[in-house]
């Protein structure tokens, strides 16, 4: 098994996932430094590059968070290296402060920021759109429109950054990052970098001066930044990544970018409208190539702007059309703002067909009514939704069981502030609906620290927060420091499952090895908390009895933050996967089933997918294929019908 992705030959074609294509593009650009923080749909880019770090002589790290990732990558740039920084859309917010300053000063070695975004929130808690950062902070933005472009534009982003000496953002989306298509490879360059940070020049000497953001320098820096933008526009006017397909004088001009390009193409083909409708696909979406747009706007009165996220293109093109009203004339715009397309959620070819039909009065033709009606009947009769749940043997199920129980017994309407990770499912039935607040990374601890101070206003509820081990380092530490310093009455439970599990076990500062596989010192969460002088306990969530006792004691103990670290590796982690701790067995005679005295606690309430409810025998069964052998169901069985025998 070898990765064709990184074969060092030219002009061969392969099926690449969008993220793989971006990684390949960076390699073809000769990238030296790669940083990032895991987040769907971005993680594969850093992972793939980490896999070839040795043979391509890269420095690859999973940084503690996106801000630090960007700073490490910026250091690469200032040391004259080619740097790539990768994150999902929310990470750009984390990195934003540094991003503003990097963009203001500019770069030395090329620096490319890749933001993989998630319209439709397929695996996110939001539909964040980072494109406005490019406008707000004044740096170029690129949006590949297919798989080949994902690779080619990633490579070009480095060239552009090198030419204008500023950071360039490449924005992808889930349907590109996680989709696959044909990509023809380019060659991989030989790169012999020499890293040095120069500071001998004057402050305004971008390549040789100290990198300083002084108030007195801001005026000059901003002027320089605007020159870079002008240079980018000039490149964009000629860019082969802005393409037009269609008649010279179309009835309707569609302007689009990113994966919406593919949706629009498909819709136009299905509607057979290529002779009437023109498609201007923009690869360079900030700053806008104004001459190119002027040329296209002037030949068509109806403009349909197709994009996901915020109406970023739509607003900016409207501004441009107003500025150029004399040249291009009065336009009618269609898009997300007038309801031609829904204003939220991701798009697809069907929504495009509907939108185009709406504008041109063409006819709808998707699915046959009879067929749809029958299918709808069948769905209603017997097809249920599959609720997401924790995996069999997941430590989170046990942890939430314990927290749920402790908060119930505490009987003060206590609640749990959640955080971002698999354990966010703790807000749903598989986590016994324990989480009551769930927003951003680290925000649960920050808010718990707030709630814990409101006793003076009569708040008497118990306040708890959870975060994962990776989140602890990423964003929870400052929030915990805040809670400790302000003596907030809250309990933090760290669900330490030994890795960034949700995104596929990327290492973090508490891991024994880094992205490139080399051994690294592990930061100990317990010691860090002890250094903050809070009460810390460590327990195994599978030890229900001991952990419950600690939680109940913590709830009685008032005043300062308390931290409970629940340590148990993820059931899918390399250390646990395929290895049972216990061989589970059933003593069917003891099973009370749905009778009073139990009423199927294991399957009805605990609901581990490793259990089967035998509706015919009315008894519990173990699913030998799915059971991970954690033994927790034996601990909760009130009659000893489920037994656990230690393996080995």
């Amino acid at each position, binding site marked *: *098994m070898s990765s064709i992705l990184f074969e060092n030959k030219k002009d061969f074609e*392969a099926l690449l996932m969008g993220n793989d294509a971006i990684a390949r593009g960076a390699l073809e650009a000769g990238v030296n430094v790669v940083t990032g923080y895991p987040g769907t749909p971005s993680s594969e880019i850093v992972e793939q590059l980490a896999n070839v770090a040795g043979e391509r002589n890269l420095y690859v790290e999973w940084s503690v968070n996106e801000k630090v990732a960007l700073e490490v990558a910026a250091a690469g740039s200032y040391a004259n290296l080619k740097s790539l920084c990768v994150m999902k859309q929310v990470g750009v917010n984390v990195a934003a402060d540094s991003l503003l300053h990097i963009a203001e000063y500019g770069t030395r070695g090329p620096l490319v920021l890749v933001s993989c975004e998630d319209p439709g929130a397929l695996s996110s808690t939001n539909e964040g759109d980072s494109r406005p950062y490019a406008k707000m902070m004044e740096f170029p933005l690129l949006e590949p429109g297919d798989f080949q472009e994902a690779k080619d534009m990633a490579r070009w982003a480095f060239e552009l950054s090198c030419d204008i000496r500023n950071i360039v953002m490449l924005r992808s989306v889930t349907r590109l990052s996680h*989709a696959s298509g044909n990509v023809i490879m380019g060659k991989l360059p030989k790169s012999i970098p020499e890293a040095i940070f120069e500071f001998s020049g004057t402050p305004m000497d971008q390549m040789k001066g100290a990198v300083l953001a002084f108030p007195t320098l801001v005026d000059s820096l901003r002027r320089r930044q605007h020159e870079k933008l002008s240079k980018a526009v000039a490149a964009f006017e000629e860019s082969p990544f802005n393409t037009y397909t269609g008649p010279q004088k179309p009835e309707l001009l569609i302007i689009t970018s990113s994966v919406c390009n593919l949706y629009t193409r498909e819709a136009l083909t299905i509607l057979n409208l290529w002779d009437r409708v023109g498609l201007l696909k923009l690869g360079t979406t900030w700053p806008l190539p104004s001459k190119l747009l002027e040329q296209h706007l002037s030949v068509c009165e109806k403009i349909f702007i197709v994009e996901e996220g915020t109406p970023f293109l739509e607003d900016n093109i409207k501004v441009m059309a107003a500025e150029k009203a004399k040249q291009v004339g009065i336009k009618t715009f269609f898009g997300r703002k007038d309801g031609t397309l829904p204003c939220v959620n991701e798009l697809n*070819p069907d929504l495009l067909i509907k939108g185009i039909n709406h504008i041109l009065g063409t006819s709808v033709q998707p699915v046959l009514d009879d067929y749809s009606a029958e299918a709808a009947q069948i*769905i209603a*009769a*017997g097809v249920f939704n599959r609720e*997401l*749940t924790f995996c069999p043997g997941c430590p989170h199920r046990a942890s939430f069981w314990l927290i749920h129980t402790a908060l119930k017994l505490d009987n003060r309407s206590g609640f749990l502030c959640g955080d971002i990770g698999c354990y966010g499912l703790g807000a749903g039935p598989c986590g016994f609906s324990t989480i009551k607040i769930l927003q951003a990374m680290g925000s649960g601890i920050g808010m718990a620290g707030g709630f814990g101070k409101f006793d003076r206003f009569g708040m008497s509820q118990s306040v708890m927060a959870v975060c994962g081990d990776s989140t602890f380092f990423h964003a929870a530490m400052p929030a915990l420091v805040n809670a400790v310093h302000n003596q907030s009455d809250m309990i933090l439970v760290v669900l330490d499952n030994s890795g960034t599990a949700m995104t596929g076990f990327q290492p973090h500062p508490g891991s024994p090895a880094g992205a490139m596989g080399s051994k690294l010192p592990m930061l100990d969460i317990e010691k860090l908390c002890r250094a903050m002088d809070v009460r810390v306990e460590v327990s195994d969530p599978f030890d229900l009895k001991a952990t419950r006792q600690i939680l109940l004691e913590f709830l009685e103990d008032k005043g300062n933050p308390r931290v409970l670290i629940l340590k148990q590796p993820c059931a899918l982690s390399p250390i646990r996967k395929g290895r049972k701790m216990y061989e589970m067995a059933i003593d069917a005679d003891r099973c009370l089933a749905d009778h009073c005295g139990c009423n199927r606690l294991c399957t009805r309430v605990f609901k581990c997918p490793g259990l089967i409810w035998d509706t015919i025998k009315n008894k519990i069964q173990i699913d030998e294929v799915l059971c991970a052998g954690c033994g927790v169901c034996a601990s909760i069985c009130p009659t000893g019908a489920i037994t656990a025998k230690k393996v080995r």
Partner: protein
Amino acid sequence: MENTLRCDPYNLIIAGVGGQGNVLASRVLGDMMIHQGYTVTIGETFGASQRGGSVMSHLRISARGGFSPQMPKGKANMVVALEPMEAIRVLAVYGNPKVKVLCNTRPIQSVGVICGEQIYPEKKQIIKWIESLSADAKFFDTTKAALNLGNPVFGNIMAMGALSSTGDLPMSLNVFEQVILKKVPAHKVEINLEAYKIGKGMVIA
């Protein structure tokens, strides 16, 4: 290149439940097609859907290319279902009276079934529904056959073997072998070939 696709684009959906190996199956098939000069677009969703949820991969196979990773509604030519209920879920959106179905009959229960809030329909009923929503449906128990091979996860490769026997796509054993060599560790190649062959024998075209 001679275009031997039954239609162009050939729209195929592989449907299943997280953990059944949807992604590997779609990548293997995609690689097999690219290997023979076709253009392929695959759209799939991972992330949260891995935790027991429904998953599907959309494959657009063509001699031309440039297709959307999300298939338009009602446009599937073939649905390969690794789980029977997932076949219906996919047909309801992407099916049409001409669609063909290859379906593993072994259900995967939902958490709702485990806890007693949902009832999984009878096998006979599910088969009837799938038949009424397709022009041609073939059923087999790849899970059972895969368990005989030692691991239910081979069900995905068997389904690909089954697909190869329909003749809709150029999927010779030889091409499969060349692709799988690059996808799995050396010691797993033989058993994957075996799974492919078993799958191929499951459908009488």
